[in-house]
Each structure stands twice: as structure tokens, then as C-alpha cells.
């Protein structure tokens, strides 16, 4: 297969289509507008549907509607727009509607700025909308990785009947990288596999049950049963779906934790530190929910490891999960920027050097 040079946002959009997405609902917002623009041109070519919604609130509800019929549906936005989607995301989670949501994170809070950020980590993995729910959340660190994950993201969403979130920073959407795009998946709704989907039911259709896409369970017993079902599903996701990358971890003196683009900068820092004779490893969660607690702990528990440095493009959000993983056995330090200024390789190198000097 040939390599093509593609902008991240367009590659992600094309990958979603190749993975079977035939419906896109969205609203323009920088730095991800290239995704709806790409979809607007591409969907009609393959008999799909692109519809510009009046708001992100409407867009996610259109997702709820279309995905409830069994179709593969995607929406994308950036931080302020994803905030508006939270109500609908919670409904999708409650009603077990599989779908795909892309957040190309920009600076916040409020309108923030339009540069890259990782400021929505809490929103993505600690809640966002109301209720006890989780989203299977992938944080790709390269355009190729985003494509590769996209190719199985819908399968996962459908297997567990949960919404999948792509948590990407603005850099991934904006940069151009040579990528390899897989072949188009010929996806058709299989009513056997999606007996819950609303496709038009009539009395004679038994044993297929009447479709009801719904998140209200008005009495305590039925809501308990429903929530227990959701929790059992989340437990399975936690057991089966954790993904992470380890880089140079064996016998490392320090461990850096980072996700997304920041992890790539951390890798450069690690290479530089190696030249200075300092052995530093990286653990990069690829799924930030479920967070790979055990993997982080295992690496950090090595006797060689003196301390952990968490690096993020925010004021320390994943840091809380890293600390939970480390559970007080080692020092966990933090380096990050708010305001969307990407941490540089030198800054990370210097931070490790100062940790080593005990400063």
C-alpha cells in the first residue's frame, strides 16, 4: 500500500468513512473545521449523508437519531462544541447507542484559544455529561495511529454498545504526515447483530422486539438494573480494551507519562537524555479511558525507577490517574503548560535534569 501525505483532520475523516461511517452531523469550529468540510465533499461521493446542524447540541442529537437505526455515525467538534454535546453524549451512553465522537481539543476554559490543548481530559474521562457512564476514549499520538484506531473504533462501539470518543489535540488534526489508508469497509447494518436498532417494527416482526431507544428508567429497581448492566459492560471494557505504549522503559531511572502529541515530544527528550547518559522511559496511554493503571504501575514499580514525571498540555489532569496508578510508591512530578504553548524537548530535558539534581 502506498503512503499518502495527508492533513490529520482529513485523514481522520477519510478513515471514518473507510470504517463504514455513512452519516456525519456537525457544526464548524476551529481547529477541526476541515473534518466537516471534507465530509461535505466526500459523503455524497459514496452515497453517505453530511448534514450541517444548527448547533453541536443538535448535531449530537442527530447522531443519537441516526445511530439508533443501526447506522455508523460520526460527529466531530472542538472543546467548546464538545461541551455542548455533553447532554447528548450522556443520552447516547444511557440509551446504549454506539457512535463516534471526535474532539480536536483547543485551549480553554470558555472560548480559550484555537491552538492545541489537552485541557478536556477531565471532561472526557471523568464525566462530562450527567450520570455514571464512561466513553471508550482513544488519544492517538499520530495521524497514522488515529487512522488505525478508527478502523476498529466502530466495532468496539458496537460490541459494547457505547459511544467512542477520539480525544485528539489540535496538532494531530492540523499536521500533515505520510499515512497508509486501509481499504474501504463495506459496512451494512446487520439486523441480527443489532436487534435493538429502530428500523421500522410491526407486530408480525416477532421475535424481533419493538425498538425503544431510551435512557429513562423511572423506578429505582429498573434504573438499578440498567445501571448495573452498564457497569458490567464498562468492567469488560476495562478488562479488554486498555491500550498503551511503552518506550525505553526497561531499567529506566525516570518514567515520563504523557498522551497524544506531547508523548512524541517526550520521546525526543528521552533520546536527548540518553545521549547525556540518563535512562528515561515513557508510558503513553492510548486509551485514556480505560486508563492503563496496571501497566503504569508495573513500569514504575521497577527498582530502577526513582520518580515519575507527568507531562501534559494542561495544568495536570491525567496526572491524577498517574498518581492513582503509582499509589504513593514513587514521587510523581508534573510539567505542563496551559495557554496552548507546547512543552518543548528542552523543557522536558531540563525538568528531568532538575529532578535528578533533587531540585
Amino acid at each position, binding site marked *: 500500500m502506498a503512503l499518502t501525505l495527508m492533513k490529520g483532520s482529513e485523514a481522520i475523516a477519510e478513515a471514518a468513512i473507510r470504517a463504514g461511517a455513512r452519516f456525519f452531523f456537525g457544526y464548524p469550529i476551529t481547529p477541526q473545521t476541515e473534518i466537516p468540510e471534507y465530509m461535505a465533499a466526500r459523503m455524497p461521493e459514496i452515497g453517505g449523508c453530511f448534514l450541517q446542524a444548527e448547533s453541536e447540541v443538535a448535531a449530537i*442529537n442527530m447522531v443519537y437519531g441516526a445511530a439508533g*437505526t443501526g447506522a455508523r455515525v460520526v460527529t466531530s467538534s472542538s472543546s467548546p462544541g464538545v461541551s455542548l454535546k455533553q447532554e447528548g453524549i450522556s443520552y447516547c451512553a444511557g440509551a446504549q447507542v454506539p457512535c463516534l465522537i471526535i474532539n480536536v481539543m483547543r485551549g480553554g476554559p470558555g472560548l480559550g484559544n484555537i491552538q492545541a490543548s489537552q485541557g478536556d481530559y477531565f471532561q472526557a474521562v471523568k464525566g462530562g455529561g450527567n450520570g455514571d457512564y464512561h466513553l471508550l476514549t482513544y488519544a492517538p499520538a499520530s495521524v497514522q495511529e488515529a487512522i488505525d484506531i478508527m478502523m476498529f473504533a466502530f466495532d468496539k462501539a458496537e460490541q459494547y454498545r457505547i459511544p467512542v470518543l477520539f480525544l485528539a489535540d489540535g496538532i494531530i488534526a492540523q499536521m500533515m504526515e505520510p499515512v497508509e489508508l486501509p481499504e474501504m469497509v463495506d459496512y451494512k447494518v446487520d439486523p441480527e447483530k443489532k436487534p435493538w436498532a429502530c428500523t421500522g417494527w410491526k407486530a408480525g416482526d416477532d421475535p424481533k422486539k*419493538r425498538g425503544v431507544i431510551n435512557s429513562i428508567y423511572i423506578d429505582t429497581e429498573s434504573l438499578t438494573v440498567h445501571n448495573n448492566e452498564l457497569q458490567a459492560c464498562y468492567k469488560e471494557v476495562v478488562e479488554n480494551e486498555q491500550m498503551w505504549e511503552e518506550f525505553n522503559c526497561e531499567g529506566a531511572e525516570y518514567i515520563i507519562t504523557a498522551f497524544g502529541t506531547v508523548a512524541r515530544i517526550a520521546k525526543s527528550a528521552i533520546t536527548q537524555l540518553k545521549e547525556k547518559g540518563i535512562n528515561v522511559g515513557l508510558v503513553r496511554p492510548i486509551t485514556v479511558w480505560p486508563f492503563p493503571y496496571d501497566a503504569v504501575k508495573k513500569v514504575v514499580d521497577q527498582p530502577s525507577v526513582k520518580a515519575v514525571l507527568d507531562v501534559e498540555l494542561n495544568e495536570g489532569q491525567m496526572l491524577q490517574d498517574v498518581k492513582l496508578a503509582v499509589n504513593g510508591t514513587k514521587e510523581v512530578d508534573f510539567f505542563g503548560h496551559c495557554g496552548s504553548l507546547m512543552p518543548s524537548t528542552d523543557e522536558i530535558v531540563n525538568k528531568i535534569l532538575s529532578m535528578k539534581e533533587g531540585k
Partner: protein
Amino acid sequence: MAVLFEKTKLLTDKQFHYCPGCHHGIIHRLVAEVLDEMNLQGKCIGVAPVGCSVFAYDYFNCDMYEAAHGRAPAVATGIKRAVGNDTMVFTYQGDGDLASIGTAEIVHAAHRGEKIVTIFVNNAIYGMTGGQMAPTTLIGQKASTCPTGRTEEWSGMPIKMSEMLAQIPSSYYIERVAVNNTANIAKAKKAIAKAFRYQMEGKGFCMIEVLSTCPTNWGLSPVEAIDWLENNMIPYYPLGVYRDKEAE
């Protein structure tokens, strides 16, 4: 023995939870009968709102969604775009749902000319949450959040959704009806049937506004509630066709 009356198969056997004298039940039956008579079971998907009719998914015997408060038109948009013209899609919404929190969604469904039918049940109050003021609450009408009666100065004049949506270029058919007597019930059913016929023909956005009672939160008996609707609601919300592109 000759069967004189049969419950439509588009309603389940689940007992309605509506209060005595509430018009939601009549309106449900009209919608269900129309779907049945048009042979649409198996070819229709409904969207329930948040409001007293939140459990409509338990009553309509077809595929159903329950939407977030006010978002039913957006949900219906997603469904309709996915299932195409052969399946009829409808929303069933109250006045708090459609005329307050969901104004953006209803306006833009109409604006895009979505091929859906909206049944808009206007009872001039938030029924489900216990009788708070709605945008449709009449001047002088008391509600728990306007205990001395709504005033124009403080809350503006009650919103007229049919008149407003009729102004949107892509609205196809908008009619306001009531179910306060048998003649009006027959008219309401005809209007609902026409809306679904338009959708079957692939025409644009259709909304039937149904003036409805809420004896419980109006603090009236079922009979008094009908009187109140006739004496106060109908004069402010005149019945009639506000838009019918086919007739134009």
C-alpha cells in the same frame, strides 16, 4: 357478534398514566389511529419528548425513541436522514419542550424542511414538573413560577409557535387544532392524517399544534378545563391552517 370498536393496534396495551381530563390520551389515540389507518405500522418511528408524554414510547406500538428535553426534532432529523423516505418519522412534544428549551431544534427542523411530522401539544403550562410557567402561558394565568399571574411586562406575550413557524420558508404544512369537542377531534384527526400524507409524498416539514388541557396544573375539573381552553386559549391561539403549501 359484530365488533363495533377496536383499540388501534398502534397503541400498546399499557395503561396511560395521564390525569383524568388530560387531552394527551386523546391526542395519542388520534396519532395512533392515523398511523394504523394509513397502514404505517412497520414504516414509522416516533420520538417522545421530555414532559408528561415522556412515556409515549411505552404507548405507541412502533419503534420509538425518547429524546432529551426539546431535542426531538434533531433526533427525528437523524432518524429520517438514515431511514429515508419510506419510513415516516414523527415527534410528539409539549410546549415547554418545543416552545422553550427546544426552540432552536424545531425552528431548524422546519428551516431545513425536514420531512417529519411534529405533534405539538400546547397546554400553556409545564405539566410534568408541576405547573410552572411556559412561554405559552397566557397573560393573567397563574402558574407556580408566576404565582400572581403572568404579565406582559415581566415575561412578554405568550409565544405563538404555529404563526411563527409558518413564516419559515421551508415549512410545508402548519395547522392548529383542538380536541375539546367531537367536531374538533374529527378535524384534528384529519389534520394529522394530512401531515402524514404529506410526509409519505416526500413533502417538507409539517406541524400540527393541538391545544390541550392540563386540569391538574390549571387547578380545574376536567369539564372546567375544557371551558377554560375554549374561553381563554382558543381566542388567543386561533384554530386554523397557518401554512399549507399544497393549497397555495
